[in-house]
């Protein structure tokens, strides 16, 4: 009898405290600011245009280009095989499965680097993995792959080697039989990251 009384009071009081607490959501996936700052400086998230061009030429299924520009820009020109996720709708329900996935490397790009790096920061804060950015965006792509500059005669052998390679790539992306700008590669369905590591819970 007395125990019931004491317990009732204690529970009701704690219940009151619980009821007035604000709702918080913890996510173990989210990084904190210091971790994110470290990640920014590591620059592991940058994919060079040469690497990307190679991947496209070899039809590497590991990479998925994601164009963050508005739809009109995407229709006017886009890299082969890109998926268009306009930056405004990055977190819309349609697209979250594509940026929160485990199967492929997503490579964000826009005209410059700003949008891509912003998108990367946001997805990183959310704890999504496998997202990268294309170094320098389309501008760098054009400057490097489509209109490569001939190295100066003082540059090392390596620079010339790279130049040769880029000319070859240019041939692939602009020459006859080039992949047309609208995505010819089918965009694959995303493989969502498993939210719950324990699928079978309870005692069912």
């Amino acid at each position, binding site marked *: 009898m007395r125990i019931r009384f004491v317990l009732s009071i204690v529970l009701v009081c704690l219940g009151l405290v619980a009821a007035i607490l604000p709702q918080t959501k913890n996510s173990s996936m989210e990084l904190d*600011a210091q971790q994110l700052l470290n990640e920014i400086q590591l620059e592991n998230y940058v994919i060079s245009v040469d690497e990307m061009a190679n991947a496209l030429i070899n039809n590497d299924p590991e990479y998925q280009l994601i164009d963050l520009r508005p739809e009109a820009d995407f229709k006017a020109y886009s890299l082969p095989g890109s998926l268009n996720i306009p930056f405004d709708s990055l977190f819309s329900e349609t697209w979250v499965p594509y940026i929160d996935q485990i199967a492929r490397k997503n490579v964000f790009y826009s005209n410059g*680097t700003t949008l891509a790096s912003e998108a990367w920061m946001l997805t990183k804060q959310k704890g999504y993995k496998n997202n990268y950015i294309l170094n320098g*965006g389309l501008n760098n792509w054009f400057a490097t792959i489509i209109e490569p500059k001939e190295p100066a005669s003082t540059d090392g052998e390596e620079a010339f080697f790279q130049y040769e390679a880029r000319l070859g790539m240019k041939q692939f992306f602009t020459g006859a039989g080039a992949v047309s700008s609208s995505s010819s590669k089918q965009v694959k369905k995303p493989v969502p990251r498993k939210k719950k590591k324990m699928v079978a819970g309870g005692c069912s």
Partner: protein
Amino acid sequence: MKRPYIKILGLIVVVLAVGLIFTSLKSSKKYKFNKSAEKLHAELVAAKHYLDPYKALEIISNKDENYIFVDIRNPREFDNFHIESAVNVPMQRALDEEYIPYLKNDKIKVLYSNESIKADQIWLLLTQYGYENLYVLQGGATYWKENMLSKDLFKSKSEYDDEKLKFDINKVKASN
């Protein structure tokens, strides 16, 4: 038990007090984010956090006390060249306590790096972390050095935008 109500009342007070003390223990993870990614995304879409270099020049020449220019490059780069009146907060130490006075005050802080990408990233990070009144200088130190120091400034005025396509799409397509 002569006066049971006093005991009950006492119990209620004790439990409530313990409960409230308990909740005040909320661990303040040192670098916890204060703004959700979704909220920040909306701010980025609005893109109101950029400061045009020409407006920045006006602010500097007016010696406007409400603005602080924050150079987030490393000290060597800062010594080499920096915008007049700027303070140096190297980005890798942006969260350190010694820099809080520079970043947490009522003034408007304008971040810049060599270009705008790193400054934009640090802007995002600090905004997520809860700092306010931050802006990003478009073009950063490189653009500043090239365009803002010349005498016939307003003749060569060109808008800086990292997201502007610098190549002619039709040319690329035509060569197909």
